[in-house]
């Protein structure tokens, strides 16, 4: 243990603890900016500087390990003056249009300014000297360099958490900036639109592209029928932007709020998640049969899930040779979209050209997904607008809704029913668990042998999880799988997807089925979720997802009555011609820069 003094108070910490963490132990809060618990230490903003007795310069508390006998002072005159200067310097190179900015009131620079630098600014404005670029090329997010304070959190995120490195620090001196490959528009480089950088940007330099006004317009248009679907991960996080603690389930109130906002039909992405299980489960079993029984050497295994559009774009750029391994199933969002303007329109007798299909997603990549040219199977754009969880919270505030005091409400019918298997799509391992619950039962006629259907081995925050299930006692139709050991893997965060892809590419993986989610923690950690994010917050959201599952009556996708109905009335059976038309898709090879 290391013993040191901070503001004349004793504290003991483990070897390797930073001064910042040691101070926190004493409940002394040192302000930070470039520091983020999900990322490696940077030590470049210099906001966290403190005075160390005997040292010539101030030290960065986030980057300095505590040492025996150290004497630290966090609030001396030197520290306060330096800190004020640093905040003012940051403000001088930042285009402050707070009242117009999306991050107004949720901006870390604003908080620092309020705490340390209110009053007239001493220094000169530097924004006018730089030709700042605002990149609006991506449908998912906006990169506004005029608000960048160069903390490099986005670069570290894209590199360490996602192994994409679509952005890097470029040039030096006054020209130093965060840049894509040769400053190309973000829509033209390997960026997967995952939005993890947006989640960690302290200012308004990286924000999602919002479609709130367009959605309001549709709602107010008496001519339009606006249908909204909600992703599983939204209901366990929406509360955070409306005054709740992380991990609170607000499903009923969310549905009520959506009704109050004026949407014509409140439906659930969870419905199409159950549908996805039917389609994808069948697809997997067909591939296995072709590979194991028919001896077809062309069959691509392992099969990868395809509901994460950030993951899809990642494969398209970096591992295009494995596109055939991706499931051809669309994501639940897009399956829903295609059905909204065909099946739903027919059932409700509404002209599909008058339907506006909106989705609420924990995701920024879904905005890109909705824009993909192949997502028009209905004859129209299947999903018109994607709103993030954050945008929904904004709309609720704009409408003056007293969210906390809303009554619990239920989804509408036709495509509003769902099971626990669907809601767990929101967490890493959830798609795999849902698929296993259904596939095992279809193949053996028995429930999957895990207590209360909770397939624990596929759950949790480990980057890469592996499991194998022995298949025994198969029904006649699936006898060819008797005795087989189904090997599966689950990865979340693209850095772990990268690991698995490299193993597969090097022939060192013998999986049959792999679930990949582009974001750390799965969708609950998505790029569209409330800010801030941390491991603790994501763990709480994950717990809420599994809690939601446990509280549902139906917990297996194939038992969803709306799913049973849609096959009977419309799609015939999984992987039918109609299913392929509406619910399956293809992918595009892309350049690796």
């Amino acid at each position, binding site marked *: 243990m290391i013993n040191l003094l901070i503001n004349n108070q004793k504290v003991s910490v483990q070897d390797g603890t930073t001064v910042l963490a040691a101070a926190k132990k004493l409940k002394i809060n040192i302000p930070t900016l470039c520091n983020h618990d999900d990322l490696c*230490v940077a030590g470049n903003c210099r906001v966290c500087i403190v005075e160390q007795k005997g040292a010539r*310069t101030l030290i960065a508390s986030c980057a300095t390990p505590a040492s025996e006998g150290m004497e630290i002072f966090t609030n001396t005159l030197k520290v306060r003056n330096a800190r004020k*200067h640093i905040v003012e*310097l940051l403000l*001088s*190179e930042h285009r402050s249009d707070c009242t117009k900015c999306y991050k107004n009131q949720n901006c870390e620079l604003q908080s620092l300014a309020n705490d340390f630098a209110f009053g007239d600014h001493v220094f000169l404005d530097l924004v006018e*000297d730089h030709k700042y670029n605002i990149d609006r090329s991506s449908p998912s997010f906006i990169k506004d360099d005029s608000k960048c304070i160069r903390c490099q959190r986005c670069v570290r995120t894209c590199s360490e958490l996602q192994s994409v490195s679509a952005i890097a*620090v470029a040039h030096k001196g006054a020209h130093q900036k965060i840049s894509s490959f040769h400053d190309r528009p973000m829509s033209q480089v390997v960026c997967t639109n995952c939005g993890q950088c947006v989640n960690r940007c302290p200012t308004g330099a990286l924000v999602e592209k919002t479609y709130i006004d367009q959605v309001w317009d549709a709602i107010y248009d008496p001519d339009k029928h606006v249908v909204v679907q909600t992703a599983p991960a939204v209901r366990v996080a929406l509360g955070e932007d409306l005054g709740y603690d992380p991990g609170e389930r607000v499903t009923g109130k969310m549905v009520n709020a959506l009704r109050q906002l004026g949407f014509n039909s409140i439906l659930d992405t969870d419905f199409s998640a159950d549908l996805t299980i039917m389609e994808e489960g069948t697809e997997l079993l067909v591939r296995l049969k072709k590979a194991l029984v028919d001896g077809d050497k062309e069959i691509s295994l392992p099969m990868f899930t395809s509901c994460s559009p950030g993951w899809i774009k990642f494969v398209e750029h970096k591992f295009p040779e494995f596109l055939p391994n991706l499931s051809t199933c669309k994501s639940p969002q897009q399956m829903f979209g295609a059905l909204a303007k065909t099946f739903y329109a027919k059932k409700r007798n509404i002209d599909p050209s008058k339907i506006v299909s909106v989705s609420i997603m924990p995701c920024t990549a879904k905005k890109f997904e909705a824009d993909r040219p192949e997502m028009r199977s209905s004859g129209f754009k299947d999903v018109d607008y994607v709103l993030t969880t954050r945008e929904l919270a904004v709309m609720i505030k704009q409408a003056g809704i007293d969210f906390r005091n809303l009554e619990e409400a239920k989804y509408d019918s036709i495509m509003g029913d769902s099971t626990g298997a669907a809601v767990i799509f929101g967490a890493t391992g959830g798609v795999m668990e849902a698929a296993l619950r259904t596939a095992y039962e279809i193949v053996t006629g028995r429930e999957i042998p895990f207590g209360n259907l909770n397939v624990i081995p596929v759950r949790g925050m480990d980057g890469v999880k592996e499991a194998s299930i022995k298949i025994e006692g198969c029904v006649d139709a699936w006898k060819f799988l008797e005795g087989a050991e189904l090997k599966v893997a689950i990865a979340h965060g693209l850095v772990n997807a990268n690991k698995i892809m490299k193993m597969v590419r090097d022939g060192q993986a013998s999986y049959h089925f792999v679930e990949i989610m582009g974001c750390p923690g799965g969708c609950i950690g998505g790029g569209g979720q409330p800010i801030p994010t941390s491991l603790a917050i994501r763990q709480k959201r994950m717990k809420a997802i599994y809690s939601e599952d446990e509280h549902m009556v139906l917990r297996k996708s194939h038992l969803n009555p709306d799913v049973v109905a849609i096959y009977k009335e419309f799609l015939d059976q999984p992987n039918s011609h109609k299913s392929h038309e509406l619910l399956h898709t293809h992918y595009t090879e892309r350049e690796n820069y």
Partner: protein
Amino acid sequence: MENKGLTKVDLIFEKIDNYEVLAKGFKMSRDEIIQEMLDSGLKGRGGAGFPTGMKWKFTAAEKNPVKYIVCNADEGEPGTFKDREILDRVSNKVHGGMAIAGKAIGAKTGIVYLRGEYRYLLPKLMIELDSFHKMIKEIGYDFNIEYRMGSGAYICGEESALFESIEGKRGEPRNKPPYPTVSGVYDKPTSINNVETLVTAMMIIQHGAKNFIQYGTKDSRGSKVFSISGDTPTPGIFELALGMTVQQFVNEFGDGDTKAVQVGGASGFCVPRKKFAETIIGFEGMPTGGSMKLFNSSRSMYNVLHNYLEFFTEESCGQCTPCRVGCQQLLKGVEKVKKGEAKSTYLNELMKLADSMKIAAKCGLGQSVGNAFKSIVGNFKEEIIY
């Protein structure tokens, strides 16, 4: 403070028998070599002035079997060109110094980081390196030197930025601790020394610490190579004992009309005429990498300051706030004051900013910008304002 007056010395460029000195060095134990360095009181000749013996001692104490000796040949401080001359004329001593250092700290590999602007020296250096490697083999020491080129970045002269550059990354200084002696290039214990320091080390092995300390003062032992330029009839490099006053220096090298001397380059201090007599050039007074620029009364100190600030604004690595933004503020600030678009009292705010930069910036570059700023604005305020 002792003042020994201006003494010319011929140590660095003295002709020696490389083989002889190296053989002598290898017969010594590593502790003996380190003790010789400590006794000599040799301090780093690149500008930072860290006691060389201590640096080698710390690195030697590390347990890692893989260590490095790095020669910092990224001489980029404006007004410094002595390392170029040293590499041009006595690179055998540079290589030899590295071998001695390698022996002392337990490193089998030496890396010379040569600035891109000196690439034209490479063919000559490679020839010398070849004969050096043959010589070392004969003596029986397992030691190898590689060359890595810079590509035009002043900040890569900062030790940890230099390591980053060798490792193929942007030259952005690292967080310290850990210090280079513990974790340097490739995260291995590293002793990084200036070109001149390594040559001086060779000469200390040749002549012994006792002879070395007859030059200089108690706190600034030995001699130093000075790069002298500007308004002087005799620009060039000169080897002088440390400890003289600026007045003595100007008497020898000035053109009769010297109004200011910039000691230590852009990151050094500007000494005005009225302080010539009281300023000692040495580690106890004004430490320096040896860059000495003389300005006569025809020169505008505003232009000088502006030139330096422009330099730093461009060469800053850009990662930390005080330096990246602070340099821009200082530059834009003096421009506005000069144009009359800001009140002259704004300079007081900038002086306070310079103080903050000195203690809050992440590396020596940002911490030193304030030196030139404060000394020029402090001593030549009228020239900045009018």
